[in-house]
């Protein structure tokens, strides 16, 4: 195989880099093989999520077989129908939808910052949302709408602060992450201070919300949140091309006709909104946004962080975490605790890898 004049003249000169050229054994693969692999891997993640979802619908104090679950979903009346449709389905759907939103949000930020650490929970948006919620709860409002609004404002406000502090004629990935980690630390102490000053009961409510749980999600909360997330999903799809351009570096992206700063700002806003809507509904569920995109990237072997596959991986991760939270321990724990434990281990390994790479 002649791999072009470049390889031809370079091989004999002895000045080659270790990764020079394509070895002759590597026959040109048809383009479709690569694409098929990616489609297959993405579909596999979706399928596994679906199967785990069916199993999860059958788990609980009143166990149901997958057949019974399917029958209930198909519209057969009976006690199984009430259990599946009324109680368990909203929670399973919430895990899938919210997980997908977190995965997509993480993919947007990791791609923007070109760093696997660049995730909305690491750079403070979840913590900021929690701060917003605590402020609302402490000030005496008890409605979920109030809490959700507080979380939204807190998350978006934190994003704005981080973005402005990191701005220096444009925003660069690593600076965004470092500023975000700093802001997160400040917000953590603000949160502790607010909880310490609050009355015991109020603090308990806030802490419960702050652990991140899907236990409180019912149809009435799920439907509006899911509708909002669907809209944001469309926005992410529209912005995926600009995002792919930004991956090439600003000079290349701009020479391709992309207005980079408006595109980046739009992506930040959509990414924050995805996380904020989820956080407003469930409390901060950390590490799904951090881990899902990298999991998807490794499975799909895509160029950069795959948005769709990251969303599917997020759905699967949060669903599995919620099943663990409900059924593996003797008494149910908030899913946020489970993702914290799994994700904490992952974050440590990521930091170790990162520090090895940079040293």
């Amino acid at each position: 195989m002649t791999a072009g004049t470049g390889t031809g003249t370079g091989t004999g000169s002895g000045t080659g880099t270790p990764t020079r050229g394509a070895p002759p054994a590597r026959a040109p693969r048809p383009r479709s093989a690569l694409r098929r692999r990616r489609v297959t891997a993405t579909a596999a993640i979706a399928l596994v999520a679906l199967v785990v979802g069916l199993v999860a619908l059958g788990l609980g104090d009143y166990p149901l077989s997958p057949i019974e679950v399917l029958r209930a979903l198909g519209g057969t009346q009976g006690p199984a129908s009430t259990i599946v449709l009324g109680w368990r389905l909203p929670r399973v759907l919430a895990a899938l939808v919210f997980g997908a939103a977190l995965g997509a949000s993480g993919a947007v930020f990791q791609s923007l910052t070109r760093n696997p650490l660049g995730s909305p929970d690491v750079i403070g948006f979840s913590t900021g949302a929690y701060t917003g919620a605590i402020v609302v709860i402490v000030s005496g409002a008890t409605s979920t709408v109030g809490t959700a609004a507080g979380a939204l404002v807190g998350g978006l406000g934190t994003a704005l602060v981080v973005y402005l502090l990191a701005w220096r004629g444009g925003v660069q990935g690593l600076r965004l992450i470092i500023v975000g980690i700093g802001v997160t630390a400040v917000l953590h102490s603000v949160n502790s201070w607010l909880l310490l000053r609050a009355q015991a009961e109020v603090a308990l409510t806030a802490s419960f919300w702050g652990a991140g749980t899907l236990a409180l999600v019912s149809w009435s909360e799920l439907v509006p949140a899911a509708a909002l997330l669907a809209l944001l999903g469309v926005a992410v799809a529209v912005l995926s091309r600009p995002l792919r351009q930004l991956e090439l570096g600003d000079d290349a992206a701009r020479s391709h006709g992309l207005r980079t700063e408006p595109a980046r700002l739009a992506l930040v806003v959509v990414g924050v909104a995805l996380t904020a809507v989820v956080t407003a509904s469930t409390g901060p569920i950390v590490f799904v946004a951090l881990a899902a995109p990298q999991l998807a990237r490794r499975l799909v072997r895509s160029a950069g962080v795959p948005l769709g596959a990251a969303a599917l991986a997020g759905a699967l991760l949060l669903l599995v975490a919620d099943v663990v939270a409900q059924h593996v321990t003797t008494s149910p724990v908030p899913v946020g605790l489970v993702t914290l434990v799994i994700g904490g281990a992952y974050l440590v390994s990521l930091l170790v890898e990162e520090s090895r790479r940079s040293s």
Partner: protein
Amino acid sequence: MTTPQPPATPGQPATPGQPGTPRLAARAAHLAYDRRTVSRSIDASVRDGSFTVIVGPNACGKSTLLRAFARLLKPRSGSVLLDGRELAGVPAKEAARTVGLLPQSSTAPEGITVGELVARGRYPHQGLFRQWSEADREAVDGALAETDLVDLVDVPVDELSGGQRQRVWVATALAQQTSVLLLDEPTTFLDIAHQYDLLDLFAGLHERGTTVVAVLHDLAQAARYATDLIVMRDGEVVATGAPADVLTAELVERVFDLPCVVVPDPVTGTPLVVPRRRRPSA
């Protein structure tokens, strides 16, 4: 490479076909970064169909001028014109269908294949509802053939050598199908054989009608390939014209502080700068 269709904008002041209008021009342009002024008032232009090479010592502002032409840097005052129109007023995608750039530094996302990266050069030809088309496929295939990368189309860019990788970025710019191509130090970091491979590729594009503008360090290469030279020093244009007229020993000594003789290149007859031995104290 197909020649570009003239834009269908009515009332456009000048078209590339009109003789005398430069493709790109800086008019009393003040070029500066945040706090650092590079050129206080620079005038320079690129003839249609030329192979223009900008040369000058380090930090003379040659890359800055190219960045202004590439729309990466907006002049503080004065203007930068594309085909007689104020470049800043041309919609970004439209400008990107006319002027392509090989940036000095760019990043390839991990795991991206040659074909995928080159396809991203089609961005200015695509819209929200006009996504991947037959024209895109043809442009990408043409760019891959031009750069001799057809066999590597499915190889991840990370696995390529430096010379191959640079050709992939060239192909990405070619897929953009622009009639003007800007090259920011395209041969840096390449060994000499790869440098001339690439320059020959650009010369071929130029012969087929593309207006090429390059920033180069090597004066012999500049003299060989350029039809027009722009010589810069301290943010100002010192001389312009054909290499044979411009590149004299006197000019090189004045611009680069390098005592030298200029002899005809034994292969091409173009000016070849040969440094004199310098005093040890210099």
